[in-house]
């Protein structure tokens, strides 16, 4: 479904220098996978998520989605992919401040072409109900708690029935009960067949995934390997 081969990424810096955050990442995601990525801040987790989500093009390497390299896709194809195939949950929710809860959930529908907005509105209401937001539909983001905003962001990510959900620190800033509530929602979605890629610094969340990776020296290392190395070093 999604395949990353030798993906590298550098950010330009003033003075012609570059900051390399990914030095060669290989990753394969299949339908229904749950993968988590942990690692220190600045380790390239969000960069990797942005590349998989087609928000950023890698400096080199290949990202293939459903057999097609994203580098060869047109802007329209990429936009359609982001709209239809990928659901994004950003760190900090990032809701549109001028739109109500219902309007925020409906946003990907409005941005996508050729979809019946009326049937999608029913789905938006259904999602809101599922995530306990039915009495907040006409509220603006600043009138919601952090947990509620996060749930709106999840509902928005799901409105177009994506195949993969990319979540960047989905439980960040939440107290443990709220964080667990969000984790339960995400894993229940996986139970329904959704592919889940989580970027988090919370080990208790990361370890619930089928596979867990850590970003180290710009690469992904399976957590089991890393743990073994640590143990060996300790010995």
């Amino acid at each position: 479904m999604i395949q990353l081969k030798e993906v590298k990424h550098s950010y330009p810096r003033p003075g012609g220098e570059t900051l390399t955050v990914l030095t060669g990442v290989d990753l394969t995601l299949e339908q229904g996978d749950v993968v988590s990525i942990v690692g220190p801040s600045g380790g390239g987790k969000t960069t990797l998520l942005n590349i998989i989500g087609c928000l950023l093009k890698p400096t080199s390497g290949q990202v293939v989605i459903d057999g097609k390299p994203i580098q060869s896709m047109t802007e329209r194809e990429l936009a359609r992919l982001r709209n239809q195939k990928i659901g994004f949950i950003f760190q900090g929710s990032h809701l549109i401040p001028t739109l109500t809860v219902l309007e925020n959930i409906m946003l990907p529908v409005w941005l996508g072409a050729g979809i019946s907005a009326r049937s999608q509105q029913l789905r938006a209401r259904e999602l809101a109900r599922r995530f306990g937001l039915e009495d907040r539909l006409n509220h603006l983001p600043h009138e919601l708690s952090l947990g509620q905003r996060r749930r709106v962001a999840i509902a928005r990510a799901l409105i177009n029935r994506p195949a993969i959900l990319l979540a960047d620190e989905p439980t960040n800033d939440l107290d443990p009960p709220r964080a667990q509530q969000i984790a339960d929602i995400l894993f229940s979605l996986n139970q329904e067949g959704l592919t889940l890629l989580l970027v988090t610094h919370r080990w208790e969340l990361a370890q619930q995934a089928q596979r867990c990776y850590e970003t180290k020296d710009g690469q992904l290392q399976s957590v089991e390997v890393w743990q073994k190395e640590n143990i060996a070093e300790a010995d």
Partner: protein
Amino acid sequence: MFILVLRNIQRRPFHTALTVFIVAVAVAALFASIWLGQGLERGLELGAKRLGADIVVLPEQIEAKPEQMLFTGFPLNIYMDKSLYKDILAIPGVKQATPQFFTRTAGAMCCGLVSAGRVVGFDPDTDFIVGPWMKVVLDRPLTKNEIIVGSEVQARAGDDVLVRGELFEVVERLEPTGTGIDGSAFILMATARRLAAESPDLKHLWREKSPDKLISAVLVQVESPDKVSSIVQDISKLPGVNAVPALQVVQETRQRMRTVTVLLYALTGVLWLVSLVSLLGRFVGLVVERKTEIGILRSLGAMRWSVFRLILLEAGFLALVSGLIGLVLGWFASRYVVGWVTAGTNFPFLSLPFADMSVLFLWCLLAAVVTVLLSALFPAYYSASLDPARAIAQGELE
């Protein structure tokens, strides 16, 4: 997509109000200055064309500027001896001349004729002034109880109006001229003299001479325009008269008016430029403020073109609404400005006809939309060119 535009406008009331204010003021100024400029130009053109006389001769004791005599309802109840008419007619180079006798209505007149202040008595045998102003020239002489009214007088043909206690039938309403003629009414000179003679409040004027021996003005047409100056000099030699060369006054007035209108247009241009720059600043600020939002839209499937269109659509919609508000403001403001300018300068003003006014409305609206779109063009392009991930990251930092 349009719902995003509406929500942005609706739920950012401060931003919206400020943008609307800037555009509305600029549009109001543009509309008012063009309307005023064109109205003055038209007033002068038509006033001069309809005046019909090359020289206006008035009693010497009138203390007024020449343009005040020509373009306002001035003077009233000031007279000279009627023998001067024959003296003027006898001056070489005078092609024709006609006397007029002015009086004024005593307070408001009834039966609809409320705004006429000056009643002009004209001589139908020599007149070459009133006839050409008529929409439809009467095919018979005016009778003693008939009246012709200016365009601002609230009476229509067929109405009966009361002037100094006497009923008159309105037979004609003149076309607008933008001058004092619009507020005047015209009757036969003999009737005007009789009304003036019988008016108790004017009796003190007739102690020395009866109204039958007096006139208020003589309007002169010369054989050749080159001779106006010399004929004015000849007329001025007559005792107790003040000769005003109409064409020269019109030209001088036009010169002064041009200065006023050029200044007005220049000020409007500067205001427009300031508006353009402040709008540019506003849209750049708005785009920087909404960087994260733009990144989110892109990440949710909006294309670059969609973001570009969104910003321009918002700008265009704001321009349209602000433009309409500005036009309404401009319309009301113009009425005050026109009153103020014409009162202060004696410039004749003639409003634009409906069709021209509609075109002016559309041009102002178009100017507002184009200006706002121009000022939003760069911010829209900048927003559209942002990478979604970069926009979100930068937006978070800013």
